Structures are given as C-alpha cells and as structure tokens.
C-alpha cells in the first residue's frame, strides 16, 4: 500500500487540529511552537501515525522535527 504525501499531510493536519489549533493555521511551514503543539501532542501524533501507517516515530525522531512539513516528510518517506 502506498500513500501519497498529500494524504499524509491531510491526516496530520486533521490530527493536529484535534489537539487545538485552527486547521487553517496548520500549514507545511508552520512550526510546532507557533501552533502551541508540545511534546505531549507529538506523542499523541506518533500514536495516530503508527496506527494509520505503521510508521514508528520515536522520541529521538520527534526531536528533529520543527514544522508540520518536517513530520509529513518523515512519515511519507518511511511509509513509502
């Protein structure tokens, strides 16, 4: 099963929006800091991503991520 980057983007935006920020502020270049997304939110996101795409994101992976685009890129690459 292959998944497109657009599909991943859509799912990530949906997940992040469920944590609080308005969906229209969740752009590829938006930083987690700007969106008030913290480490607890990222653990929740990692659980959703693993359920959805079988991609395991560990703590060290998440530390490198600053923007929505970063996480979409990482998931798309690993899910491919």
């Amino acid at each position: 099963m292959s998944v497109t980057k657009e599909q991943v983007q859509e799912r990530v935006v949906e997940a992040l929006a469920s944590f609080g920020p308005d969906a229209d502020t969740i752009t590829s270049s938006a930083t987690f800091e700007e969106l008030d997304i913290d480490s607890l939110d990222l653990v929740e996101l990692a659980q959703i991503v693993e359920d959805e795409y079988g991609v395991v994101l560990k703590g060290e992976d998440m530390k490198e991520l600053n923007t929505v685009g970063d996480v979409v890129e990482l998931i798309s690459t690993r899910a491919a």
Partner: protein
Amino acid sequence: MGDKRRVVITGMGAVTPLGVGALPLYERWAAGVVGIEDGMGACRSFDPAEHLSLKEARRMDRFSQLGVVASDEALAHAGWNDEKPYDPFRISTILATGIGGISTVETNHDVMRQKGANRISPLGIPMYMPNAGAAAISMRHGLQGQSFGIVSACTSGAHAIGLAARMIQYGDADAVVAGGAEATLTEFGFACFRAVQALSEKGISRPFDVQRDGFVMGEGAGVLVLEEAEAAKARGANIFGEIAGYGSTSDAGHLTAPDPTGRPAATALTLAMHDAGVTPGEISYVNAHGTSTELNDASETLALKLALGEYAYKIPISSTKSTIGHLLGAAGAVEAIATLQALNAGVVPPTLGLEVPGEGLDLDYVPGQSREMVMVADGAPVALSNSFAFGGHNVGLVIKGHG
C-alpha cells in the same frame, strides 16, 4: 485570636448541580430547589466549551475543568481580573479532590485492554493525578506560590480551606486560591460507592430523615479567594467574610464507619471554635455534613451535642447535601461557600427531603423551607461548617460573614 494574621474571603466561585456560579448554589437551595435528578447530582448546565478552549478542555479531566471554571469566577469576584494584587510567589493554590481524574483512568484503562499498553495517552497521568486541578489553576492564573492537591475523601475541600488559612496566618502566603473539585459520576464510580453500600438505593438525599438510606453522589467544585485581612483592606477589596477557625482530628477507628460516639468529630469542632475564639452561644448556624447515611447523621448529631452542649438544640442546622447530593472532595469547599452566602443573606436554607427525623435525631435540622437567621451575637455572624470522611477524617471550619 492573639496576634494571628486574619484570613478574609474576597472571592467565591462554584459549579454545582444547581448551576454554574456561587449565586445559583445559594439562591436555588434557599428557594427549595433540588439539584438531584435520576439519583445523581450532575452539573447539567456545565458545558466545558463555554469556558475553555479545545486545547485546555482536552488536557483536563472533568474534575479539573470544574475546578478551573470555579477559580475563574472566584478570581473575577475578588477583582483579580487584570494584574494580581500580590507578588505571584506569595499567592498559593490548593485544589482538593477525593478521587481525582477517575474518568481519565477509566478511558485509558479501556484503551490498554483494547489496543495495548503502548496506546495509552501521554495525557493520562497529567490528567488523572489528583494534583492536576491545582496545577491547572496555578498555570491558568500565573499563581507561583506553593500549590498542591489535598486528598482526604469527603473532608478534602474543608482541609484545603483550613490549611490555606494556616498558610496565610503563618505568613507563607498573602493569598491562597483554595477549594475542592470532584467528578466521579462514572459507571466505575457508582459501582465502587454502591459496593461499599454508601449510596441511596432510592436515589433520594434526605439527611436526618427516618427513611434516609445513603447519600446521593454529586459532582462539582467550589473555590475561594482567601487573603490576609490587612492586605485585603489595603487594596480596597470587598470582604465577604472570614475563615475564623479551623480544627481537624481523626477517628483512628474504622475505615468507613464514623466513630459511633461522635467524640473525635466533636473534638474537631471544638478545636475550630477555640481557634476562632468563639463559644457555642455565639454561633448562629451550623452547616452539617449531613450525608443522608444512617451512620453519619446519627454520629454527627452526637458530635454536635458534645461540641455545642445545650446550644446544639438551639442552633439551626441544615445540610447542603439535601439539594446537591454529596460532592465528596468538593463538598467542604462548596458548603463553605453556601454557608457564607447564607450568613450574609441572614437566611437559613432548609434540609430538603426531611419529613420525619430518625430515632435520636432531635436537633433543629430546619426541615421544609428557609427561615430567617437569628443572629445570636453582635458583630459578624458566625457559622460552623462540618466535614467528615471515609478514613476517619474530621474537619470543623468556623466561618464569619461580613460585619
């Protein structure tokens, strides 16, 4: 009183089965409204979305949500809307709870069984820990003095107020945001309290009545803003009353049953009166613990006779639990708020549901409807508010209204 710093009440907030706000709690109770429906005291008019952002709401268990919303009202009532009147490190926070975030525990336990241990939410612990409510209030309002939860079952809220007063008296804080919150109206919560045979099978709260058969569980929160008296006066605060005395003891007896003699409970009440420097003859009203259980209402009656002597028969006594049920760890705080409003209105709200007192229950429990409060002494009116708990904890608070 000696040279103790005095502790005044400058703000109140509540969310109860009678509505969102401290005023509906008192006004609706005094009007004879029962907030219990379907055998529980649920905060039906509380919608978290009206008070909290999505992010805030999903990071708080319901008990914390109730506590935070009560704190918002209390701080606004105290006129703390903009800048805090004290150094933030001199403002403490205590939010008591009997149980903590039980619905969060249940949800995550279900997730663990259904999807595995690695699917438990990272928000699980920070939401269900019993100190979560205190943490949420401290963060929301930028209060940087000491903050923590207090856990003593059904005396939690009263312990929070008593120990908050001590903090101010000792000089560790100039102000404390103190209260209690509880939200245990879940399948598991009901099952547990039913198992210990504490709940009314008929779902009716009728403290001191011959037909009483247990308490009705409720949920909610009560929060007070307490300030050192001179500092409060200096900033021109509205002063609604005073936490004048606090006393607390333990039965050191049975896990759930109160000491049948009422002696340890009476000692807590006596200590509270000594602390306040008042005698039974100066007390105009007693807000009873009055759970509607067979054991409490009997032992509390004995405790009142021991603590108040002949005045036990003269002072009107009523139970807030007759209108909202038993709010467990929030009860002491919510009832202190109801007591203060009753003192300041000069009205004794009734013990609803009481028709025929049980055997040996021969005090004036104010059945039927509200009556005018007879002020038995000059100066600020004085009330005693009782709280007793599983575990054998006993707390008496002496509360004064405005002078």
